[in-house]
């Protein structure tokens, strides 16, 4: 490693503050003087560093000095050819990947449980999604990784596809066989894009699942603000030598702000330095805490905190041991109920709760004493609330029928708020997503069938949490006008 102890943006900001430059530029709060309440809330130091791009601080739209150096150091730290600091969340990084790899009319292979930012990117560029059905664990009610056989089938049926996008790891820590997917894709001249939002630590910890760059993927986005410790909304896009950095920068600049926040950029710079210098020890400690919590939670009885034993060589090719997901149905409580109890009665905020599980996000900021609280709270919840187990909602994957690209559906004339029972045969213009297992039932441009209508009604009755449509109760759906149906 050359000089990972260096943090060029951070140091330029410190130097800048020392110079006490008189600001006749934006932002108009002028080091906070014009907005004392903001200074009171955020602190003087923080507000003073909220400055604009200028010569000594470089410019994110066209980095040539300190931002470029920070990106080079990040690329080195992550083992990538190039790294791009992102200030629009990992959403902007995911969208850049999709917009770089595909264009109008081209096909891109995706797992059905992609983040909605991917489909939104398809609305922007007009590419067509080819969905791969993710495997589902019916006991736990979670979507798993992509099976190799499914990827092979999708490639065979769509040899003209330009890219494959992989979620790796999933929210629940499930990894696909990334190396094999990269091999298959490259044999067929397809790029591999990895949504690695939950996998920043794969690049720094020991004994972690393989990272996208190490597996030879072409592009990947890492949510530095998740396991990397940077500020919310900051992220990094990584590319391999197979992708031209100049074009990627052009794509980024299509939608990126020209007033990138230096608080976010500095937080990326410092976090990268911290991970490069201390990531190995820090993530070993995170794994220790998660493994300890798993052991203790599994001692309580009825709860199941799952780990590496799930690995099946295909759709669970590897497991991210920093993830702590607890299956709660055998306590007689839904994951979301435990999630709510933990917050309301125990002052513990979990990352998510679905029908069967609740997930604790363990990171470099955690301490053993809070882990002990979580374990004891789960113990106490079981003591107080244990009931007979209710039936688990069985998910059946319904193969979507993609009639038009998300872009066409998005811009087509619509009929709004049609009662759901009357939508059979129509083309949906919005998302319908159900938790569990977090797989879209409908995406824009897909044909609504009686089977899908029945499923939505059934899932709602079973208490699944449904999101996506304009009507929050999902009694009505927006569809494309009759005359425009193909």
């Amino acid at each position: 490693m050359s000089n990972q102890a260096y943090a060029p943006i951070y140091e330029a900001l410190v130097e800048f503050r020392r110079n006490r430059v008189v600001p006749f530029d934006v932002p108009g709060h002028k080091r906070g003087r014009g907005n004392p309440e903001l200074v009171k809330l955020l602190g003087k130091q923080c507000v003073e560093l909220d400055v604009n791009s200028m010569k000594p601080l470089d410019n994110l739209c066209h980095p040539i000095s300190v931002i470029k150096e920070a990106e080079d150091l990040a690329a080195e730290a992550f083992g990538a050819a190039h790294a791009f600091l992102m200030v629009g969340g990992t959403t902007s990084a995911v969208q850049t990947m999709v917009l770089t790899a595909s264009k109008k009319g081209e096909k891109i292979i995706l797992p059905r449980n992609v983040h909605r930012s991917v489909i939104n990117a398809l609305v922007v560029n007009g590419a067509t999604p080819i969905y791969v059905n993710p495997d589902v664990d019916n006991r736990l009610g979670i979507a798993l990784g992509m099976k190799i056989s499914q990827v092979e089938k999708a490639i065979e049926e769509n040899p003209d596809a330009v890219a494959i996008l992989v979620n790796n790891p999933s929210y629940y820590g499930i990894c696909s066989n990334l190396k094999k997917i990269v091999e298959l894709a490259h044999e067929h001249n397809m790029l591999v894009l990895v949504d690695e939002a939950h996998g920043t630590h794969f690049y720094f910890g020991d004994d972690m699942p393989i990272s996208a760059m190490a597996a030879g993927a072409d592009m990947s986005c890492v949510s530095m603000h998740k396991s990397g410790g940077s500020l919310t909304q900051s992220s990094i896009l990584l590319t391999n030598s197979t992708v031209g950095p100049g074009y990627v920068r052009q794509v980024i600049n299509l939608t990126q702000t020209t007033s990138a926040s230096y608080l976010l950029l500095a937080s990326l710079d410092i976090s990268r330095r911290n991970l490069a210098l201390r990531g190995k020890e820090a993530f070993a400690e995170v794994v220790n805490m998660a493994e300890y919590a798993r052991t203790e939670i599994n001692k309580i009885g009825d709860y199941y905190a799952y780990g590496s034993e799930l690995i099946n060589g295909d759709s669970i090719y590897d497991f991210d041991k920093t993830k702590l997901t607890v299956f709660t149905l055998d306590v007689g409580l839904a994951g979301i109920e435990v999630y709510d109890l933990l917050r309301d009665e125990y002052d513990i905020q979990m990352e998510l709760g679905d029908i069967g599980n609740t997930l604790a996000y363990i990171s470099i900021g955690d301490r053993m004493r809070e882990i002990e609280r979580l374990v004891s709270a789960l113990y106490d919840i079981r003591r107080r609330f244990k009931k007979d187990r209710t039936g688990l909602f069985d998910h059946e994957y319904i193969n979507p029928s993609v009639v038009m690209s998300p872009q066409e559906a998005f811009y087509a004339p619509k009929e709004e708020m049609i009662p759901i029972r009357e939508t059979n045969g129509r083309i949906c213009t919005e998302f319908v997503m159900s938790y569990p297992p977090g797989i879209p039932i409908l995406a824009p441009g897909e044909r609504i069938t009686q089977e899908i209508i029945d499923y939505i009604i059934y899932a709602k009755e079973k208490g699944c949490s449904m999101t996506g449509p304009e009507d929050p109760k999902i009694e009505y759906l927006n569809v494309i006008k009759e005359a425009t149906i193909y």
Partner: protein
Amino acid sequence: MEFWFSELHTENVKLSIKVNKHIFSEENDHNRIDIFESPEYGRVLTADGYIVMTERDEFIYHEMMTHIPMAVHPHPQKILVFGAGDGGVVRELLKYPDVERIDMVEVNVGVVEAAKKYLPFSASGLDDPKVTIYTQNALRYVRHIVGEYDVIIVDSAGFYGPGESLLSREFYGSCYKALKEDGIMVNQHQSPFYAEDRAETQKAHKRIVECFPISRVYQAHIPTYPSGYWLFGYASKKYHPVDDLNAKRWNKLGIETNYYTTNLHKGCFALPAYVEKLLAKVE
């Protein structure tokens, strides 16, 4: 030369104690411990800059934490103590000949060692054969224990930092479970006087009311704690703290105290109106 220790009781109020000399200082994973000698209060123990106890007024705190539950419970034999690394609670407990076992869970072994060395007036009982010290996280120790103890005394150093988990629903729930059917739990409840401390008093009280069928608050005067006025929580599965006090039985034990009396016991549950009101808000 003037050498003063100061502790902020609020952003705008501080207590200063003149110091003769600094005796001990140690920083470990848990907190920073200091001991100094002062002309007015004798030896003073602080954790992260907050007074834990002083030689001069510790008797009030330790007697009130210990004798209130011990006088109500008809036959306390197995006692669990959390924190209490300075040994004051254990010293009081050892005055009861019928006590068979005192389990003490203090995560910070540094406090115990320092107390034995520099605070012998309070740590005298820590080496008694009835006492077992467990150096581990309180929650981890207690969550698997069912129906084991007669009395649990929660002597947390404070509600911020390491002591925070002793203010949680899961902790009180675990203590409830670890007590026998007629068990009693006592904990410190902060001072109700200053706004920030008051929020903690209410939080502690709310959590305990949710866990125990009987829950009352009592008070004492402690000069070196914020506002000099301190509350404690009494929680029980069975015994009322005043109605079930058998003063005769306790007085027959002939235990010598400097603050606690059975008369004071009956009186200390009578609270000022503003305290009653702030507690009622969370009941």
